[in-house]
C-alpha cells in the first residue's frame, strides 16, 4: 500500500467512524416529538447543564447539579409540570472552557435540550453565550456572579442567578461603614472579574481611597503569605475577601500563622462555613467571628421550612448525600425553574419561558429579591449578613438590596415566604 493511499484510508475510516456513530445516535438522540419546540414533548422536558464534576475546580460545585436533579425527580414523582417530566442532563466540563464548547453543543445540537440551566462558571459559560444566542436556546440562571449575564440587549435569552460580585462588595462595605467605622480596611481578591467587580463595589460605598492595601492572588499559586504579610505590615483591621473557599481558608490560616487577627468579611462564594471548617480541620475555630453574606436559607437552620423540604428531597432522591450549602443552592435553582415552567403555562415554548422569566415576581427560598424584568437579567439583588458564632454560621440583621451602580444599600423588608405544602410551586 503506498503511503498516500494509507493516509487516505485513514482519513476515510475516521470519517466513516464518525459518520456511523452519528447515524447510531441520530435516531435516538433527537426525538423532537410532534411539536416544533426542541426538548419538549407532551410528557417530557429535556434541559441540560454544564458543571465541573472533576478536576481541581470541582470541589463543592460537583454537588449542585445532582441536587437540582434530585429536586426535579421529586417533582416528577409528584406528576411533573403540566404533565411533563423534567429530564436533567448533566455534562462534566471540568471547568475547562474548551470542554464546555463541546458539551453545550452536544446538549443543544444532539440532545436537543429545551434550555440550558445553571451552567456554572464565568470563563466557561462566557464562551458559549454567542452559541446559545444564535441557536435561541434559553440560558437560564447562570451559576456565577459575573455581570456578563445581565445584558438583555446583547443576550436576550441569558439570565443570571447569583447576586453579582459588585452587589456583594457593596453590602459588605456597607457593614464596614455602619458597624466598623474608622477601621483600616484592606482587600484581597482573585485576579479576575470576581475580585475586580467586588473591589469596585467596596470602593463604591467606602470611597476610592478608603482601602489601605489591595492585594490579589492567582489560583495557581497557593502561597498567600506575601499578601497577608503585606496586610499585617499595613496595619489592616478589616480585610474584605473576594476569594473562593480554598483561598478563604488559606488566607485565614496564613493570617493566624503570622499572628494577624483582623475582622474578616467574605464574599458569598467563599464564605460557606461547613466547607471552610472541613478544609481547616482542627484550625476551624479561626473562623469564629467571620462575617459573610448569603441569600439562601442556612443548611443548618433545621427550623426553616425550606431546609426541611430540601432535606426531605435530598433523602428521597439524592441518596442522602451530605447536605450543605451547595445542595440548598442546587435545589433552589430547581425550584425557581419549576416556578418558571409553571408560569410559562401548558403551551411551553422557548419564547413563553423567556417571557415568563422576564415577568419576574418570583419568590422562593431566597432572602433577597430576584430582579428579573424585561430590562434586568441579573439574579438576586441583595444578600443578608452572616456571622460565625460558637462554630455555627447564622444570619444577623436585616437583608439588604442594592444595584451594581451607585444606588444606595437599602434594607429589604419583604417577609420571607414558606414553601407550598407539597413542596412544588403551582402556576400563579
Amino acid at each position, binding site marked *: 500500500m503506498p503511503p498516500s493511499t494509507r493516509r487516505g484510508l485513514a482519513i476515510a475510516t475516521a470519517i466513516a467512524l464518525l459518520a456511523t456513530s452519528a447515524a447510531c445516535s441520530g435516531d435516538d438522540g433527537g426525538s423532537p416529538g410532534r411539536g416544533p419546540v426542541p426538548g419538549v414533548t407532551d410528557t417530557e422536558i429535556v434541559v441540560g447543564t454544564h458543571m465541573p464534576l472533576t478536576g481541581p475546580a470541582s470541589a463543592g460545585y460537583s454537588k449542585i447539579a445532582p441536587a437540582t436533579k434530585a429536586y426535579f425527580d421529586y417533582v416528577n414523582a409528584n406528576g411533573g409540570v403540566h404533565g411533563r417530566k423534567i429530564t436533567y442532563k448533566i455534562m462534566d466540563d471540568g471547568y475547562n472552557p474548551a470542554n464546555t464548547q463541546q458539551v453545550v453543543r452536544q446538549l443543544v445540537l444532539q440532545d436537543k435540550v429545551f434550555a440550558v440551566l445553571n451552567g456554572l462558571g464565568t470563563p466557561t459559560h462566557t464562551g458559549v453565550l454567542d452559541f446559545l444566542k444564535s441557536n435561541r436556546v434559553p440560558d437560564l440562571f447562570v451559576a456565577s456572579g459575573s455581570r456578563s449575564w445581565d445584558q438583555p440587549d446583547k443576550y436576550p435569552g441569558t439570565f443570571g442567578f447569583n447576586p453579582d460580585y459588585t452587589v456583594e462588595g457593596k453590602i459588605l462595605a456597607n457593614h464596614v461603614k455602619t458597624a466598623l467605622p474608622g477601621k483600616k480596611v484592606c482587600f484581597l481578591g482573585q485576579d479576575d472579574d470576581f475580585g475586580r467587580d467586588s473591589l469596585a463595589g467596596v470602593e463604591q460605598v467606602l470611597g476610592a481611597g478608603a482601602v489601605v492595601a489591595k492585594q490579589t492572588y492567582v489560583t495557581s499559586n497557593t502561597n498567600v503569605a506575601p499578601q497577608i504579610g503585606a496586610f*499585617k505590615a499595613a496595619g489592616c483591621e478589616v480585610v474584605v475577601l473576594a476569594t473562593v473557599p480554598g483561598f478563604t481558608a488559606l488566607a485565614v490560616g496564613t493570617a493566624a500563622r503570622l499572628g494577624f487577627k483582623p475582622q474578616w468579611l467574605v464574599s458569598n462564594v467563599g464564605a460557606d462555613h461547613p466547607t471552610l471548617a*472541613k*478544609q481547616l*480541620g*482542627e484550625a476551624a475555630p479561626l473562623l469564629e467571628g467571620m462575617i459573610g453574606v448569603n441569600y439562601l436559607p442556612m443548611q443548618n437552620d433545621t427550623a426553616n421550612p425550606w431546609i426541611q423540604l430540601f432535606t426531605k428531597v435530598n433523602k428521597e432522591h439524592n441518596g442522602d448525600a451530605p447536605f450543605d450549602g451547595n445542595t440548598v443552592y442546587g435545589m433552589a435553582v430547581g425550584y425557581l425553574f419549576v416556578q418558571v415552567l409553571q408560569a410559562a403555562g401548558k403551551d411551553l415554548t422557548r419564547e413563553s419561558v423567556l417571557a415568563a422569566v422576564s415577568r419576574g415576581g418570583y419568590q422562593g427560598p431566597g432572602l433577597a429579591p430576584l430582579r428579573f424584568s424585561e430590562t434586568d437579567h441579573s439574579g438576586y439583588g441583595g444578600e443578608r449578613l452572616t456571622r460565625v458564632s460558637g462554630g455555627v454560621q447564622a444570619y444577623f440583621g436585616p437583608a439588604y438590596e442594592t444595584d451594581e451602580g451607585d444606588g444606595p444599600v437599602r434594607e429589604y423588608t419583604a417577609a420571607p415566604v414558606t414553601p407550598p405544602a407539597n413542596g412544588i410551586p403551582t402556576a400563579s
Partner: protein
Amino acid sequence: MDRFVFLTLDGLSRGAVYAAFALALVLIWRAARIVNFAQGAMAVATAYVAYSVSAATGSYWLGFLAALAAGLLLGAAVDLAVMRFVDHRSPLNPVIVALGLVLLIQAVLGMVYGNEFLPAEAPFSRSALTVAGVAVLSPYDLFAFAAVGVVVVGLAWIFTRTAVGLRMRAAAFAPEVSRLLGVNVGGMLTLGWALASGVGALAGMLVIPTELGLHPHAMDLVFVSAFTAAVVGGLDSPPGAVVGGLAVGLLLSYVSGYAGSDLTPLAVLVLLLAVLLVRPGGLFAPVAARRV
C-alpha cells in the same frame, strides 16, 4: 528589611518541601531514566492513606507512617505492575504511561473520597514564632526542615555509605555490568522506585497541610514547581535538587511579595531559561563527562 527576612524564611520553608519532592524525581530519573509525571498523584494517594489511617486511629503519626509505607509500596507496585512492561526504547512511552497513571489515580481517589477538599492536619503549630518583632518560622516549618534534612542526609548516607546504595548506583549507571557482578538490577530499580515514592509521600505529607487541603489534584502545582526545581538543579544531581528546590521556593516568595503573585509563573520561566541557557544540563550537571 523585616519583610525581606519574612519572605526569605517563608520561601525557604516552601523550598525545602519542593527540594524533597524534586529529590524524589531525581531518584527515579537516576534509577530508570524516567521523569515520573505520576509522582504528584502518587504522593496524593499516600496522603489519602494517611487521612484514612489517622481518621481510624486518631493518631497523626500513625497516619504519617502509613503514608510513608504506602509510598514505598506504591512505588514498588508501579514499577513491578506497570513500568516494567513499558518499552523504554522511546523515552516518551514511560512519560505517557505516567500521565495515564495520573488520570487513573486521580479518578480512583475521586471515586473513593469524592472530589472535595478534606482537611489536612499539621502535627505542630503553624503559628510563626516571633523573634525581635519579626515573625519567623513556625514549629511546623522547623519540623518540615528537619524532616527534609533527615531525608537528604539519609539518602546521601544510603547511596554513598551502604552496599545497597552502591548497588543501586551501579545498577543505574551500568545495568549490564552490574548484572555480571551479581547485582539484581531489576530489584534495585524497584527499590529505587520505592524509595523515590516514599520521599514523594513525605513531601506530600509536608506540603499538603500548607496548601488548600487534601484533594485528588492537591499536588498538581507542587509537581510543576518541583519539576522546575529538579531541572534547574540538574536531574542527575541530588544536591542539585535540594539547591533547585530552595531556589524555586525563594523565587516564588520574593516575586509574590515584591512584584505580585500573578508574575510567579513568568519568573519561573525566566529562571529556567537563565539557568538552562548557560548550563543546558542544570546547575549541577556532571562535567560533560560523556557526550556520546
